[in-house]
């Protein structure tokens, strides 16, 4: 036991003290925080396309208004000269919207000229604006009073309510989706990163030939457990720090955001800002403690299972070159689980999501994609139980392979040989 503690200590401290660990722990979340900022900066620096409008119908003046995404300039010129101006680059417009004199009942002949095609988003906006203005004109023409017309316009956001055992609460589906995706993703990355860390640790011990020195004073299983536990603690440390940084920054941004939304709602329609506000409010309703607890339980289970398998294959190879082919069968289920998780967040209670959140090889990642949508407690309990059984089996199997593998130098063993090592009595 004392030796196990020593091994765990060494595995933990040598990694945590590394500059690369400190850098990754601090820099990665900062990077994630910076990405949206950078994206926003780039997006805001791109120019809003300016569209020149030649309106021969007279229906669009004062109606077609510039938005954040598109800007309109009315041109009092002939189409031909405007086109010529665009070709020589004088007009500084992206394109020319030509509206001929139209009959409201049979509108046709609206054309858009440009040298480069409009983005899909801008095209949609343009279409929507034109349709809206034409509809308005038609309604007014049909004898509707302007008052009544304004009354008829409606904008009603839908509030979805989720029914749970503890009562009804407003649905945080939008948030749940995001949280599920992020948690599944982090789980996937965490299992791979720390699993591979264990693998490399074993390969290192084997290739620098310290293994035999170690196993003359500690049992191979102690060495295996010590390494997996030590690196698992490294993983938890890193994840907890990331979670703290995320929680703090989330708190700060949601605080800032709700302040700025309640202050100025000019740039967004009232409906959009309403949605954003409820979404942000809902973040507070998400049970983060429960999620974190679930994450830690499934992380430990999944990590131990895969770390043991990675350690087993690593113990069988001689140098890092051979590790690729042997580790692939271990990596494939992790990737498969990630793919299923992407499906599961769209259908969290479907059969694929259910079964894959029970199978120990996929359950840690897939379950993360389901928990934010609410999973019955018996499913959670069963999944944890199966995961525990799976991880115990994996560790037992890995210990058998590991014990034989660490002292084998020479040719790379086949999977059949690995299987024989498992069955070997001592």
């Amino acid at each position, binding site marked *: 036991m004392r*030796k196990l503690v*020593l091994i765990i200590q060494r595995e933990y401290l040598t990694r945590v003290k590394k500059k690369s660990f400190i850098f990754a722990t601090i820099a990665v979340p900062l990077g994630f925080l910076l990405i949206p900022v950078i994206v926003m900066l780039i997006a805001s620096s791109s120019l809003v396309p300016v569209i020149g409008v030649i309106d021969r119908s007279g229906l669009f003046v004062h109606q077609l208004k510039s938005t954040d995404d598109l800007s309109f300039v009315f041109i009092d010129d002939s189409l031909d000269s405007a086109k010529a101006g665009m070709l020589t680059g004088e007009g500084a417009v992206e394109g020319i919207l030509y509206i001929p004199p139209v009959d409201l009942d049979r509108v046709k002949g609206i054309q858009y000229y440009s040298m480069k095609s409009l983005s899909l988003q801008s095209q949609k906006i343009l279409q929507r604006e034109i349709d809206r203005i034409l509809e308005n004109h038609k309604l007014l023409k049909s004898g509707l009073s302007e008052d009544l017309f304004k009354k008829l316009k409606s904008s009603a956001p839908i509030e979805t309510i989720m029914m749970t055992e503890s009562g009804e609460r407003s649905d945080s589906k939008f948030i749940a989706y995001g949280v599920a995706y992020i948690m599944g993703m982090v789980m996937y990355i965490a299992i791979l990163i720390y699993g591979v860390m264990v693998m490399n640790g074993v390969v290192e011990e084997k290739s*620098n*030939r*310290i293994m*035999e*020195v170690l196993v*003359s*004073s500690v049992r191979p299983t102690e060495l295996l457990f010590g390494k997996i536990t030590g690196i698992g603690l490294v993983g938890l440390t890193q994840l907890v720090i990331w979670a703290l940084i995320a929680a703090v920054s989330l708190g700060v941004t949601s605080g800032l955001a709700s302040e700025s939304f309640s202050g100025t709602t000019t740039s967004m329609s009232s409906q959009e800002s309403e949605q954003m506000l409820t979404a942000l409010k809902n973040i507070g309703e998400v049970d983060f403690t429960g999620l974190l607890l679930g994450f830690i339980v499934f992380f430990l289970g999944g990590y131990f299972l895969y770390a043991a398998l990675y350690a087993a294959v690593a113990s069988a190879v001689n140098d890092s070159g051979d590790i690729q082919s042997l580790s692939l069968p271990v990596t494939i289920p992790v990737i498969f689980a990630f793919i299923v998780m992407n499906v599961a967040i769209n259908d969290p209670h479907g059969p694929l999501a259910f079964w894959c959140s029970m199978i120990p090889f996929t359950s840690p990642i897939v379950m993360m994609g389901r928990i934010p949508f609410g999973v019955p407690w018996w499913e959670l309990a069963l999944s944890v139980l199966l995961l525990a059984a799976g991880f115990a089996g994996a560790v037992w199997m890995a210990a058998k392979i590991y014990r034989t593998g660490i002292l084998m130098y020479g040719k790379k063993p086949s999977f059949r040989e690995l299987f024989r090592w498992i069955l070997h009595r*001592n």
Partner: protein
Amino acid sequence: MNKSLIEIRRVTKRYNGTTAVNAVDLDIPRGLIFGLLGPNGAGKTSLIRILTRITAADEGEIFFEGEPLNSLHAMNIGYMPEERGLYKKMKFGEHLMYLAQLRGLDRKTARDRLDEWIQRFDIRHWWNKKIDELSKGMQQIAQFIATVVHRPSMLIFDEPFSGLDPINSQLIKQEIRNLNKDGATVIFSTHRMEQVEEICQFIALVNQGQLILNGDVKTLKQRYKKNQYRVLYEGNPANCTQHSDFQIELHSDEEMTATIRGDRRPNELLNFLTGNLEIHSFTEVLPSLNDIFIEHVRNHNQK
């Protein structure tokens, strides 16, 4: 108290159909420097791994000071494997502290013992250096200290001098002798005969997993000697070369090898020679361990 530190009883180990250790019976006497010899692949390392409990024997038993070998004996064994390495990124001091504690010492004792060794080798400035900043020879010294720091009663060295320069070899050799003087039994596995000749008092020779010879070095040399004498002389040896019981082989004008056939005594040979020549020196030629090794392995392989 048992005379033997280790008793090996019919120990067998098989790997995938090959028998690496085949029913070996061997006693390792206490307090000696013991040479475990054999060609490459003879089963030396397999036997040592069983002694250090790294692997278990398929059959047979081992007794350590009369008790069946168990995990408590790990504290009494220091093993320096042939395939030895260290964590490259760890610091020298921190690494040795780790290994010393794994071998059962508490922090304080580990630190004190390491300090003694560091003083003895005068290597205090290594303490905060990373292992990969040290030369290969320096790493070997670190390995050596890690092997002996817990003062085990049995030390096992597998090819301890491979990769060491003559100065460091000498240093380590001297330390091994000192440890032996202080009471440790030393097992030495090698196929370098000149080293064995120099330090071992007792040897066991294994080949193809079987023990083919073991015993005290002096006794073995006596047993396998060929009654040869190296003679330095002056005079004309022509009259001596025809004797039926003494075979004479001339090497130069002043040196010859004389072999006694039959049960003639060495004094008779000397008398015969002094009758014909003036003798300056008369020494018995004992077989080198190398000769015994080669002869026995060859004979064993032919069987």
